[in-house]
């Protein structure tokens, strides 16, 4: 049974529940002390040591149901079917009514349980558990059929079909048996794929999504972006929260401790700590919503929203023409919903950097000081209009940090109507953020810097 438990744990990992080796050992002990006899007990027990949050618990329950429904079948290998017992077959719902004429069946009086057991043995031989991609279905099907000696059986069916009436009946019967088994095989492959949860496929997709140009992604992938972004942001947040906690604690303030303890003969009864004052920094995010970069703006806003935990003072602005603050929308709606509303209200159109930057300056000038960070996302292509560089420069002098994220690849900067070189002079740093991986790294650095 240990192998089954290990397989179950692998199944859980595929489903996205992280399980360490120590926890696996715990699970083994749990299974030993509770036994496999009581399903509910086993479920509760394993849940307590494998699922460590409510979210994981739901996943766990689903996987448990999926897995142990399937795993019950191989147990039947031990259970031998008496070929002479028709009631055994007719009792089985799937094959009810198939009982007639089975008495004469020379070689194969097997019930559907026995057929399945044979199938599971064959699946074990070809290591079906290693199947990962849906595209592998065909090859595994072939291998299992070979292991079952399917070609031999087909020959025998054909041979019998040409013989005496009894033999013909036998052949029909074998044919039926084969069909049952094929149906079972299809089911088995489906379940195996379900068990692996297309984990490999998903992993592959995620790597692809992180590395590729966003504009190159089709809608199929773009719909899968928000969960991925949330996942990445959670990782970033966890990493930087930790750092914040460490930096908060001060060191011993020796001078103060000595002074305050003079009355006690210099014995440090009361200890005083240096406290590091945490500066409240505000972040302004200005996103270009014009056609060329709007999808990147959405990604950045999603990221900032997901990072709200570690960056609570973030204000979001968007522009095509005039800059508009949209922080309130994110407060009222879900991130996805808010993005849809923003896109609908303010989206589409050509970017006018002159108007955008000037109005942005008017909106935030009062609030920008040496603790503020400004992030601008845009390609710097103003269609030959006013660049608004004076406004940006003014903000640059006031703010602690002005960052420009440009989704265009560096080789295309300064070509055509791109003004990015001029903007470079009014920013602390212009960075390329052509893929999710790059954006993630930029934000990581940003968090390190301002936290």
């Amino acid at each position, binding site marked *: 049974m240990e192998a089954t438990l290990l397989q179950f744990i692998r199944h859980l990992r595929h489903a996205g529940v*992280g399980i*360490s080796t*120590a*926890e696996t050992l*715990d699970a083994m*002990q*749990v299974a030993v*002390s*509770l*036994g*496999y*006899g*009581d399903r*509910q*007990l086993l479920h*509760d*027990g394993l*849940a*307590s*040591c494998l*699922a*460590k*949050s*409510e979210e994981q*618990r739901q996943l766990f329950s689903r996987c448990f149901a999926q897995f142990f429904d399937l795993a019950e079948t191989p147990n039947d290998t031990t259970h031998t079917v008496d070929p002479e017992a028709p009631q055994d077959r007719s009792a089985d719902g799937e094959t009810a009514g198939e009982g007639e004429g089975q008495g004469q069946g020379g070689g194969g009086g097997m019930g559907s349980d026995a057929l399945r057991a044979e199938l599971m043995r064959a699946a074990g031989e070809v290591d079906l558990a290693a199947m990962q991609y849906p595209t592998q279905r065909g090859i595994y099907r072939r291998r299992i059929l070979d292991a079952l000696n399917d070609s031999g059986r087909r020959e025998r069916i054909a041979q019998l079909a040409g013989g005496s009436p009894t033999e013909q009946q036998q052949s029909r019967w074998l044919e039926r048996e084969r069909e049952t088994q094929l149906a079972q095989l299809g089911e088995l492959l489906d379940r195996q794929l379900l068990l692996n949860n297309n984990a490999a496929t998903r992993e592959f997709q995620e790597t692809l999504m992180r590395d590729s140009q966003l504009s190159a992604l089709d809608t199929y992938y773009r719909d899968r972006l928000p969960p991925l972004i949330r996942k990445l942001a959670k990782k970033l947040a*966890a990493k930087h*929260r*930790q750092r914040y*906690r*460490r930096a908060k*604690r001060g060191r011993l303030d020796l001078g103060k401790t000595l002074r305050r303890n003079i009355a006690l003969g210099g*014995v440090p*009864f009361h200890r005083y700590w240096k406290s590091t004052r945490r500066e409240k920094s505000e972040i302004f995010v200005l996103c270009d919503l014009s056609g060329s970069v709007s999808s990147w703006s959405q990604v950045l806003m999603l990221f900032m929203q997901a990072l709200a935990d570690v960056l609570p003072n973030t204000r979001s602005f968007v522009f095509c023409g005039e800059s508009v603050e949209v922080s309130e929308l994110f407060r009222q709606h879900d991130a996805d919903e808010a993005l849809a509303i923003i896109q609908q209200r303010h989206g589409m159109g050509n970017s006018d950097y002159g108007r955008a930057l000037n109005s942005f300056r008017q909106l935030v000038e009062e609030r920008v000081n040496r603790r503020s960070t400004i992030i601008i996302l845009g390609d710097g292509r103003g269609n030959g209009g006013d660049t608004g560089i004076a406004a940006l420069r003014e903000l640059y002098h006031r703010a602690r940090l002005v960052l420009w994220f440009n989704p265009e690849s560096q080789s295309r900067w300064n070509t055509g109507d791109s003004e990015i070189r001029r903007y470079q002079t009014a920013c602390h740093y212009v960075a390329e953020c052509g893929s999710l991986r790059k954006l993630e790294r930029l934000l990581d650095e940003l968090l390190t810097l301002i936290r």
Partner: protein
Amino acid sequence: MNTARQAIDELISQLAEQGYIASEQIATTLHLARALQRPILIEGPPGVGKTELANASAAMLELPLFRLQCYEGLDESKALYDWKYSKQLLYVQVLKEQLQGILGGANDLSAAVERLHNFDDIFYSERFLEPRPLLSALQSDDGAVLLIDEIDKADYEFESLLLEILADFAVTLPEIGTLRAKHKPLVLLTSNNTRDLSDALKRRCLHLYIPFPEAELESRIVQSRVPDVADSLRQQLVTFVHGVRQLDLKKQPAISETIDWARSLLLLHADNLSAALVDDSLNVLLKYEEDINIVRPEITRLLSQRY
């Protein structure tokens, strides 16, 4: 195979004797925690009886309960151990004479220091150790129940400090060495989930999530806590509370509020829930003005629901 089932059923009935009605999930986890000697991390909304479980288990096992309430800024000198500074000082003062005597024969400084070295670290021995809850629980002679309450309120570093205790039931004091538990305590940690706990901590614990109970279970809990409430009233009140939990509220009423409400209805000599009665006593169940305003118009509808 059935022994585990029996043990768990027994646990449920033993807890019930202490007035704690445990679900099967709770009893299974508690059974495992004792069998595998693992701490339990209990999560769930406030007021579902997380702390109460520790009290009941301590009473059931007839062991002392050590409770450590976590808060921001909690550190090892308050949680684990501290030195008895004043006692050390006092001893130094009192023993001044002795020290003079011991050092009397020394000619120079290095000889005096050498002599002092021969006396070990008397001032940093276990006699001057002030045990705090964590150390007390480890040192208790025949086991203990250790409750670390609201671990999510403590700082990140404190979690790391706990790791050694949770994994090995041992504490390393720099001045003395490693102190091992004489008898491994049953450790329960509770969390209200105001922040994510570290994976390292979660990995070392069994995880138990206590949700709001189902109507039937809650009814039994109320029965056990407030036995004087009539059956019909109890059903009505539990159904009402369950209805209230379906609404979008700032703070959902928990079991403790249900019990409080049952008690106050008892004081009001009510044997039936009426709209007017509910209206008057709603502030026992709900703790926010906004919530009361949400529930008030729904009272008649909620009362008409069937159990």
